[in-house]
């Protein structure tokens, strides 16, 4: 039973990364009509920024500030990408956005691989979150519990920002009809840039959260992004809550698979995608592409 709970926890953690990443993909796709292939590379950058901040002799900035600084740094990097490259794709076929961001991902991952090789570098768990507690039925490492709860809070906060605030209302309106929203005096291009920054920042945040668990590697996001694509195909990109729930649910299913049939744990998400496509081709949240 212990092993089952442990795998469930691992599943919940992977699920929180799926949720944070697919959430960002959905927000970006809504505004920019681009599937951000560079999302995995930017997730990796988030982890690396935290690593640099900690290991730089002059800065040695720890985990807690990194949790805020890394998403901002990567978010700014993302906004520069949007201003200098992505914005020129407006009006072109969606596929060009995929190709461009794939190229960006190759560049970013290649540069990091050149300097850091392919092996992982450890990132220590902050002192406050070390150790674990005994819940009676299982032993819970505090850091892992923290990752799940914190991701959940961030996801809900993002959902609240987009669905319940005035800024979110502008955002949703601009997704529907950018020209009309511009006519009301809202600076839509700036909003697009900020949206890309937000989506990318969420990816970087997931990167920082995963650094103590999965180590910091240049290719840590390369395979993850493909799984997240499958998550997005399953859940659809129509709804924010849909992305969050699908992300967590698939993580849990993956965890269960690790316990009951470990051989299939790498493939279960893809197999589920195939099943969903066969039964309900539009994805679970149901909006046609």
């Amino acid at each position, binding site marked *: 039973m212990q092993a089952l709970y442990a795998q469930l926890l691992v599943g919940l953690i992977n699920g929180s990364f799926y949720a944070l990443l697919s959430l960002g993909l959905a927000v970006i*796709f809504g505004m920019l009509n681009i*599937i951000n292939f560079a999302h995995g590379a930017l997730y990796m950058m988030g982890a690396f920024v935290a690593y640099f901040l900690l290991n730089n002799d002059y800065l040695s900035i720890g985990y807690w500030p990194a949790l805020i600084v890394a998403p901002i740094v990567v978010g700014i990097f993302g906004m520069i990408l949007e201003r200098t*490259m992505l914005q*020129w*794709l407006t*009006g*072109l*076929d*969606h*596929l*060009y956005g*995929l*190709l*461009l961001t*794939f*190229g*960006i*991902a*190759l*560049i*970013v*991952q*290649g*540069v990091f*691989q*050149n300097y850091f090789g392919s092996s992982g570098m450890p990132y220590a768990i902050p002192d406050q979150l070390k150790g674990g507690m005994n819940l009676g039925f299982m032993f819970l490492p505090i850091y892992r519990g923290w990752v799940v709860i914190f991701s959940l809070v961030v996801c809900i906060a993002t959902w609240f920002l987009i669905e319940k605030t005035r800024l979110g209302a502008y955002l949703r309106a601009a997704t529907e009809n950018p020209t009309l929203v511009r006519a009301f005096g809202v600076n839509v291009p700036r909003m697009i840039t900020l949206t890309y920054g937000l989506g990318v920042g969420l990816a970087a945040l997931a990167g920082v959260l995963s650094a103590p668990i999965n180590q910091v590697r240049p290719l840590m996001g*390369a*395979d993850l992004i*493909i*799984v997240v*694509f*499958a998550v*997005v*195909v399953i859940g659809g990109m129509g709804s924010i809550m849909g992305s969050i729930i699908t992300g967590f649910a698939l993580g849990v299913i993956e965890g269960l698979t690790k316990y009951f049939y470990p*051989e299939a744990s*790498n*493939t279960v998400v*893809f*197999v589920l*995608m*195939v099943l969903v*496509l*066969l039964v309900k*081709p539009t994805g679970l949240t149901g909006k046609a*592409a």
Partner: protein
Amino acid sequence: MTALTDDTLPVTPRAIRDEMIVFVVMALLLASVPFTGVYPFFVMQALCFALLACAFNLLIGYGGLLSFGHAMFLGTAGYCSAHALKVWALPPELGILVGIAGAFVLSLITGYISIRRQGIYFSMITLALSQLLYFIYLQAPFTHGEDGIQGIPQGHMFGVFDLSKPTVLYYVVLVGFLAGFLLIFRIINSPFGEVLKAIRENEPRAISLGYRTDQYKFLAFVLSGTLAGFAGSLKVFVAQNASLTDVHWSMSGEVVLMTLVGGLGTVFGPVVGAFVIIAMQQYLAGFGQWVTVIQGSIFVICVLTFRRGVIGEIAHYFRRSL
């Protein structure tokens, strides 16, 4: 939504005559390679990738479907052929057939699944399917996991042609490439190809004209996948191994890059693109991961400034379709 290729010139007898002339020149140039002292292994490798890129281009350039998982056909056919040659000890021609059959079955299954969604989702689905296959091959016993199938016997094609001789192998690969290329050329200029182009330009209109567009796209997918498998089978004889690299997503990305560099939706673009990218990898092999960075930069530059590709720009300049 703007179409991927903006130069849609009508298919006229003159255009086809132009393309046939270019084809004959290309065939003669390639046939003379063994007499020039150019390293034949390099050209053979490039020819296999050129055929793969042409097959991929059939789907994106004429069907508007961007497959991000074409490596799965290359790799699957490679594994099937390698297994048939080494374990079953079949002659080369049957080995190739087994590989093609493998890719054909795979394209039936994956096509049935992925054709259900359009545009960007189609790309993500094909990518996810190829990753699924990658993990299956990683664990399956017959692929030998990380080691791959190595030391594949080359044998005698039709009992006559000794494939262990580089020159003989070169001409066999060349004939295979030219046959595949001509078949694609024929498909593009057939009524079926015209309907595909119509679907690419405006799918709702094609539907309203009474075409069952899903069936056309499915057929295009199967043709493309099977031809990509043919390229994979040929590659087994050149590389004499079949490994996980051929199924990996980065291979799918390279195929996209070759076609993009040469020109999406051009007849000869993928061939030029394949030669450019393979040559680049050859010369930059000593630079390690910088090759990845350079490939990424080419992606970015092509998308931002050079969307027609090499052949597309030339064709646009001369107002011809190439």
